[in-house]
């Protein structure tokens, strides 16, 4: 018996390339449209709104020029919210990166228990901000887990006002946010650590480098790109922080933990100054962009120098 095998007709290579290109273009086009509809368009709408006296209750608005931007200069509540947000961004970024790096170094092993620990370390990043806020509220409130534990261990004589004292409340928000972001930084640093060739460490060991020297001369320089990513993302995340604070402290006590994002929502939907809120949002975007660009610029130079 003779079996005749017929191979499928072969398409010309140029046709395949064309179709492949068309597919890519379609995907990219869709991405562009989504980006335009959900990012660029709202940004321009916000920019336009920031130049008006828009109010959520009125359909029409008047052009007011830069009046909303000038108003920002004299708004003490805004200044407090922005300063707190910047302090939070600075502090949380440092803490989350130090913890993330330390965790990554500790968890940079391959056996099963370390893989489980890695998953646990990433958990805070997976949980939604609202749930994180509720969980930590249960921990930090007057009769919460932390006070109960410390009282039982006789570490403290009376409950601590973790969320009631303005300074402690600010600190508590910082700790919770750092806890969340350390999950993210741990994973990024771990990925960076695992890409470092073992041969480098072996060669350094042969040359007599101890653990500390290997850390300074190999690990830190080789994870510099990860540092750039982590620092930038942490800063941007904190600059727009809303959900955790809203659930944990509601911005209180007496607005002590009010973030810039919370202030924007308050101005827009409680004070009904939608135009002014848009101006603050644009200013916050500019501050965040400037911060991110500066940090990236500095850290990229550091990557080259290391």
């Amino acid at each position, binding site marked *: 018996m003779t079996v005749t095998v017929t191979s499928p007709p072969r398409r010309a290579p140029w046709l395949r390339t064309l179709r492949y290109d*068309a597919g890519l*273009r*379609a995907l990219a*086009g*869709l991405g*562009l*449209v*989504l980006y335009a*509809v959900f990012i660029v368009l709202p940004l321009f709408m916000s920019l336009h709104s920031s130049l008006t*006296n828009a*109010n*959520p*209750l*009125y359909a029409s608005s008047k052009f007011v020029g830069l009046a909303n931007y000038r108003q920002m200069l004299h708004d003490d509540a805004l200044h407090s919210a922005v300063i707190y947000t910047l302090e939070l961004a600075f502090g949380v970024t440092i803490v989350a990166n130090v913890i993330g790096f330390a965790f990554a170094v500790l968890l940079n092993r391959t056996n099963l228990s370390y893989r489980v620990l890695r998953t646990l370390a990433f958990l805070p990043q997976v949980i939604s901000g609202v749930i994180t806020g509720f969980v930590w*509220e249960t921990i*930090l*409130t*007057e*009769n919460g887990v932390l006070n109960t534990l410390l009282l039982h261990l006789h570490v403290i004589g*009376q*409950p*601590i*006002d*973790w*969320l*009631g*004292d*303005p300074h402690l409340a600010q600190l508590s928000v910082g700790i919770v946010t750092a806890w969340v972001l350390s999950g993210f930084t741990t994973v990024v640093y771990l990925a960076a650590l695992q890409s470092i060739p073992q041969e480098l460490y072996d060669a350094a060991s042969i040359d007599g480098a101890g653990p500390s020297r290997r850390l300074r001369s190999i690990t830190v320089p080789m994870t510099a790109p990860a540092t750039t990513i982590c620092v930038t993302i942490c800063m941007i995340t904190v600059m727009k922080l809303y959900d955790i604070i809203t659930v944990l*402290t*509601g911005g*209180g*006590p*007496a*607005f002590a933990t009010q973030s810039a994002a919370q202030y924007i929502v*308050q*101005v*827009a*939907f*409680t*004070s*009904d*100054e*939608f135009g002014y809120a848009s101006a603050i949002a644009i200013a916050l975007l500019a501050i965040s962009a400037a911060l991110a660009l500066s940090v990236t610029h500095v850290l990229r130079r550091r990557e080259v120098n290391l």
Partner: protein
Amino acid sequence: MSKRLFTVVATATVTAAALLSGCSSSASAGGKTTLTYMTFETPDLTAAFWKSSIAAAQATVPGISIKQVVAPSTDRDTYAKQLEASGQFPDLLESITPSLYTSANLLTAYPQSWINANFLLPQGNAIKGKVYIPPTNSQIIPMVFYNKADFAKAGITSTPATWAEFEADCAQLKAAGLTPIELGGKDSFAAAMPLTGAISANVLGKNPQWLQQRYAGSVHFADSDVVSAAQEMRTLVTNNDFEQGALNVSYADSITNFNDGKAAMYPMGSWYLGSVPKNEWNNIGVFLWPSDDGSQVVPFSVGGSMAVSSKAPDQSDAFKFAEAWSLNPSNLKTLIEGDGAFPMLKNKSLADFDVTVSPVYTDSYSYVSGTNNKVSSIGWATNDDSMPGSMNNDFYAAAQALFNTNDVQGQMAKLDQDWTSATQGQ
């Protein structure tokens, strides 16, 4: 841009636009009027309550279909504004603050004849003479609830009428090893109860027009009478009359703490009456926030049911539904038993609502039905005395700030600045 890419982009744009336009308001379909109705849920006003109350109103007004929109939190006003900003303002809005919307002509007033015919205080929540939410119920904000056993243990035989007596009772309670006052200060509205009480009793009690005069600019928060009233709250802080770490205690926890007997007194809105446990019905008493001179002042707020949007497609049907819902005694039964609401329907006694209420509810209700000095509860009024813009939040936050500063005058002056900001452009 190539033709193919243009086609892809155009298709995606049209799709996105179609998706976005999916959020539309009410309409008439198949001869039925569809109305959107914004509600909110609490432990007492459950999803089942809304479902049955809507069905009951629909049964009396056939031909109306209701599309319920549940606010994500109890802050109905913020959500309503967000809906308005996105072109989805509901046709019916439950328990909102009408003064926030009337200047934008977003609400339609109820027919005054219907209001006059059915309610005890027809002008109780009127704004410039017009009623936008039926005045179905009222609250006293705050009242001071107290633990009778604790008072007896401290040797206190009668409730305080003056500020001096109140301070003396706090000292006596502390001497007996008891915490005088429970406060859920983590939630700013709860933290502000003593401040609301003191200013309502000592400032509005003497000058019920105070808030109108504040609008006119003839009185200020930084005036000596308001500062003196606010100083009373600061005194309670410095005397350690509140429970330890009061700003760390949530509103929900404060109810639990007081019901568990962890403090002797609890300044709260009369809605707490719905949370008094049955086994404490005879142990919880109530008195009004004491004034300096001992005169009795009732900080009062007339609430109500739903407002009707001026954009509702069929105003007549919207009012028919709203009126049917508002006059249904079984809806008020839930509010009375679960939320401590005081009914304000004409020609109806408590028995008509088939309710079972505690003795402390009956005592509280006597302040509503009695002839006394009722004034707007500052920060809670729904009528012309409601404060502008974000002033309620600022007022509540000032109370929290008084926990951490001796500068009472400065905090009150800040409220004047906030008032100026809130009224700019109005």
